[in-house]
C-alpha cells in the first residue's frame, strides 16, 4: 500500500469519524447511540493502524488493538449491560431540537477548521489535514454533553470526546508515547466502571437518570 493511498484511506476514516460524531449528536435511540459509538471506535482503530503503517511507529499498532478491544467491544458491552440492568430503552430527550443541533455542529466544524488552519500550514505530516476533524470531534462530543440531559448519553458524549482527543494525538504527532496511551486506556476503562456505579447511585437516589433532577441538590437556606 503506497503512502498516497494510505493517506486517502486515512482521510476517508476521518470523514467517517466525523459522520459518526454527527450521528451521535442526532441519534434518538439509546442502542443506536451505542452502535454508533462502537463504529466510531472501529474507524478510529483502523485510522490509528494506518497512521502506524505510514509513520513506521509500530507502537501505534498496539494502541490500535487497544482501541479495538476497549472502545469497540468492552465499553459498549459494559454500557449495554448497564442499560439492560437499568431498563433504559426509551427515546432520548434533547434540550435543543435536531436541526438546530446539526446547524450548531456544522458551525463547530467550520470553527475547528479555521482554528487548525495555521497548524496545517506548519506541519509536514501526512495526517495533518485530519487534525481539524479531530478537533471537531472533541467539540461535537462537548456539544452532545451539553444538549443531552440523560446521564448515559452524557457519558457517551464524554467517551466520543475522548475519541477525538486520541485522534488528535495520532494525527498531530503520530501518537503519544505508549506508556501514556496505556494509562489513558486504563483510565477510560476504570471510568466506565465508575460511571456504572454512579448510574446505579443516581437512580436509587432520584429514581431516574435525568440529570435535570440534580438541580434539587441544594443546601437549605
Amino acid at each position, binding site marked *: 500500500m503506497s503512502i498516497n493511498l494510505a493517506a486517502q484511506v486515512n482521510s476517508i476514516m476521518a*470523514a467517517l469519524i466525523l459522520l459518526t460524531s454527527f450521528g451521535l449528536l442526532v441519534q434518538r435511540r439509546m442502542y443506536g447511540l451505542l452502535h454508533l459509538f462502537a463504529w466510531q471506535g472501529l474507524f478510529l482503530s483502523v485510522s490509528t493502524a494506518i497512521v502506524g503503517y505510514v509513520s513506521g511507529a509500530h507502537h501505534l499498532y498496539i494502541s490500535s488493538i487497544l482501541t479495538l478491544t476497549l472502545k469497540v467491544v468492552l465499553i459498549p458491552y459494559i454500557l449495554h449491560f448497564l442499560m439492560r440492568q437499568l431498563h433504559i430503552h426509551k427515546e432520548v430527550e434533547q434540550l435543543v431540537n435536531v436541526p438546530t443541533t*446539526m446547524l450548531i455542529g456544522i458551525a463547530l466544524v467550520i470553527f475547528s*477548521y479555521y482554528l487548525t488552519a495555521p497548524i496545517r500550514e506548519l506541519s509536514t505530516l501526512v495526517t495533518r489535514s485530519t487534525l481539524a476533524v479531530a478537533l471537531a470531534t472533541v467539540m461535537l462530543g462537548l456539544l452532545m454533553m451539553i444538549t443531552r440531559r440523560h446521564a448515559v448519553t452524557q457519558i457517551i458524549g464524554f467517551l466520543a470526546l475522548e475519541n477525538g482527543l486520541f485522534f488528535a494525538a495520532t494525527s498531530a504527532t503520530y501518537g503519544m508515547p505508549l506508556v501514556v496511551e496505556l494509562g489513558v486506556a486504563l483510565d477510560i476503562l476504570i471510568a466506565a466502571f465508575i460511571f456504572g456505579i454512579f448510574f446505579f447511585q443516581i437512580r436509587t437516589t432520584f429514581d431516574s437518570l435525568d440529570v435535570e433532577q440534580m438541580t434539587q441538590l441544594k443546601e437549605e437556606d
Partner: protein
Amino acid sequence: MIEFYPFIIEAIQIVIVLLFAPLFVGWVRMLKCWFQGRTSAGLFQPYRDILKLFHKDVILAENASWIFRFTPYLVFGVTVLAGGIIPIIFLNLPFATVADVIAIAALFAIVRFFTALAGMDIGTAFGGMGSSREMMIGSLAEPAMLMAIFTVSLISQTTSLSNMADVLIHKEFILRPSMAFALLAFVLISIAETGRIPVDNPATHLELTMIHEAMILEYSGRHLALIEWAGMIKLFLFTTIGIASFFPWGISTSVNLINISAGIIFLILKMGFLGIGLILIETGLAKMRIFRVPEFLGSAFLLSTLGMLSYFILE
C-alpha cells in the same frame, strides 16, 4: 450532413428519455413485486397504463381554470426539456452547453410550482394538503440538492453536468470522502424528490399521508397520462443525474456507433443495479411520519455540507 449531427444526437437522447423512463419504472415495480412475493404485471405494464389513460376521456371539475388544464402539458414539456440537458449516453449534448445543473434544478422547481398550483386550483381539501406538503419538501430538498451537486462541481470546477462527468471520466481515480458524502446526500434527496418510500408512497391513492398523489387526484385521461409519464421521467432523470455526477464511466465521449451502443449497454446495467438498490431501500424501510421528513432532509443537507467541508479540510 455534419451540421445535422447535433439534432440527431438530441433527438436520440429525447427518445431514450421518453422510452426508457417507463421501462425503468416497470423494472422497479417488477422487482418490488418479487421482493414482496407477488407476481408482477410485467416489465411493460407502465407503457400499457399510459396508453390506456390516453384513450380515456378527460373529466374536468366545473371550477377548473386554465392552470389546471395547462399544467399537464407544462409538466411534461419541462421534464422532457430537462431530459435533453442531462448526459445519459452522450457527453457532448448540444443543450448541455447552454444549461447547467442549476438550470435543471430550476426546471424541476417550475414543475413543482405548477403541480402545486394545479393541486390548489380545484379547491379540494386533498389538493391543498398535497400542495402544502410538496412545497415543504421542495423547500428543504432543493438547497440540499444544490449543495450536493456543488460539492461535485468543486472537484471538477464546473457546474455543467457534461463537463463534470467528463472530468470524472478522464481524471485519475482518487478516494474522496467529499464525493461519498455528496452521494449519500444525493440518494436521500432523490428519494424525497421523486416521492418514494420512506417520504411518499407512489403506489397509493387511498392514504391520508399521500403527497404527490394528493395533488394530482383530480386529473384523468390524457392529463393524468402526461403527469404520470412526467413522474416516471423524473425518477429516470434523477437516477441519470446521479450516474452522471458520481459514476459517469461508460457514457460515450465521442459520437460513433460502438461508443453509443456501449453507452446504452452501460446505461441498462447501471439502471438495473440502481433499481435493485432503490427497492432494497423501499422494502427495508417503513414510510415515515410527515413531521420526520424535515429531519430526513436536514440530514441530507448536513451530509452535503459535510461533503463540501471535507473537500476543504481533507483534500
